[in-house]
């Protein structure tokens, strides 16, 4: 099955090195980064993870180039997007990418002491545990969302029987995982309550500071931004999820700040959220200075 569709699907982020200069010292010359199928294929949780990594790389001031392919999930060494490809190494997911980048000499969390590093790791786990799992739950275990959005998006690049088969297979896998960690019996309301609790904790931790660890952003900021921004700007069957986040004004200000500093017009890049190519069911995510809005095509 996977071999059959191997040539079809891919979402990934490339970091390419400059072939004409030596690799000593500078290991990244330019990184290309574009989302081709954002409008059609990518799902909420993948989008959040990818945005988090992108934000982290922007914060490290590394040149990136985005490449989107339909079979990125299968290209990735751990089966998850996003992943980076630099030289002859491929690294996926935020944790290993942070370590990899740190090994090459770029780190955002060097200035933290031991206790703060412990806290940072704990908060990252909180986000992964609660927000990411809630996103997965919402898009694979909530029947309304599954039927309307997820199935069609997940199976988008494939011809007729394959799109349904793959979507059902993935749904079965995610449901199995949810059951193993105890989320199988949760209702949507309980999941939303967990999201609210998580946002409350993040909001309390952030307080009035610009970033979580005062003046400088760290990987935690990147991760939180990735998830919150995606939640705020993705239109689902209902707005309950984004409403939970909108209750906390300092989190909204935080997202806006990072977006302006690292993705703004005068920033170093832009969040490439325009859809291209075939139009099935698409959402254009647009950034409005006064708030976050989504339009549906």
């Amino acid at each position, binding site marked *: 099955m996977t071999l059959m569709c191997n040539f079809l699907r891919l979402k990934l982020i490339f970091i390419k090195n400059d072939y004409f200069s030596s690799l000593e010292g500078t290991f990244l010359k330019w990184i290309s980064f574009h989302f081709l199928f954002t409008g059609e294929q990518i799902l909420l949780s993948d989008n959040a993870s990818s945005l988090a990594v992108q934000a982290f790389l922007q914060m490290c001031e590394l040149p990136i180039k985005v490449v989107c392919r339909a079979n990125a999930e299968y290209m990735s060494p751990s089966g998850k997007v996003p992943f980076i490809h630099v030289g002859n190494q491929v690294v996926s997911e935020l944790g290993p990418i942070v370590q990899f980048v740190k090994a090459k000499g770029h780190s955002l969390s060097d200035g933290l002491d031991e206790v703060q590093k*412990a806290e940072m790791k704990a908060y990252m786990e909180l986000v*992964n545990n609660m927000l990411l799992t809630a996103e997965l739950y919402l898009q694979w275990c909530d029947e309304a969302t599954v039927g309307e959005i997820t199935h069609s998006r997940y199976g988008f690049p494939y011809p007729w029987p394959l799109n349904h088969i793959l979507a059902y297979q993935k749904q079965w896998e995610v449901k199995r995982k949810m059951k193993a960690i*105890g989320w199988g019996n949760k209702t949507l309301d309980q999941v939303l309550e967990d999201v609210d609790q998580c946002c*409350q*904790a993040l909001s*309390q931790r952030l307080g009035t500071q610009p970033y979580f660890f005062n003046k400088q952003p760290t990987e935690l900021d990147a991760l939180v931004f990735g998830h919150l921004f995606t939640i705020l700007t993705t239109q689902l069957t209902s707005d309950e999820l984004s409403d939970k986040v909108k209750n906390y004004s300092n989190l909204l200000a935080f997202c806006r700040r990072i977006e302006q500093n690292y993705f703004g017009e005068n920033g170093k890049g832009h969040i490439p959220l325009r859809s291209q190519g075939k139009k099935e069911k698409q959402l254009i995510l647009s950034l409005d200075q006064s708030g976050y809005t989504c339009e549906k095509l």
Partner: protein
Amino acid sequence: VICWRHSGTSSGAGPRDPPGSLRVGRGARCIGKVGSLSEASAALRLPLVGSGAERRRALPGHPRSRRRQDGGPLRAQVLGGRLGAPFRPQRVPGGSGDVPILTSEDNIVSQPAKILNFLRKQKYNADYQLSAKQGADTLAYIALLEEKLLPAVLHTFWIENDNYFTVTKPWFASRIPFPLSLILPGRMSKRALNRILLTKGEPPHYHLKEVEAQIYRDAKECLNLLSNRLGTSQFFFGNTPTTLDAYVFGFVAPLYKVHFPKVQLQEHVKQLSNLCRFCDDILSCYFRISLAGFSPAGQDTVDANLQKLTQLVNKESNLIEKMDDNLRQSPQLPPRKLPTLKLTTADEESNSFQPLSP
């Protein structure tokens, strides 16, 4: 009345885990519970038989998720003990449902998080004096524990063959009635393996050995982080225990105290002296056992006695009177260090089910 149920205590030469003793202490804080404690203690006399029967009926027939099998009972019990809720730990043998379970009047609450919420709604709250930020930190550290430490704990207890067949399986099987004792430990073990493989066993780890290596590495890192966070203070947020202390204790204490053949993680815990000191402190404050069973020769005798204990509801009227006395004599606020009730040695009885009698 709040009745407490969790799965078996130790037997044989096994674990030091002290889940079977009664702990009633007025620990951290009892907010707004002036009248209700004595009410509850009065009410203790009443529906004992009723709640016992209720509990029996309420044994769920369908299996539910059993994660945090090991951390859960201990953790919730510690927290309950700290808060001074009048606990009657009742071990009901068998049961294919969740553990731990808290039964109070006609409420049955089943998972540690829900139990803590329930206690909080009854106005038993250990986090009352924490700032908002510390509350957020609690949530974050709990997530860290569940994500990094729990797989390794599950592995140590349920999947590592030596440990499982020598310690865990006999321990649980001894407290479950015959036909189920053959089935349930195996099922719990499979569930633990399933959980680990589904959450951690993705590529590039294709082999169980690599997954194991990864989860033990994560667990050691997590323990180091906890140790860094604890530093030299007595509890995680100052000098009074909170929910986070209960959670950490629930995870770390079994690792620290249970005698395992394969002791990889235990060695690591023993090297972190402040975590060991933390566990010992909590054990001595909140899990103190009867003087008769205690000998200066140390924990071994203690454990031997604990192993004979099944559930202790020994002298109920003494208990209630003592609680009432304490309540009347002591000031309500600020919370004091606990006068834990000493148990008399009626806990030599080792029958498996103690019928409640007023």
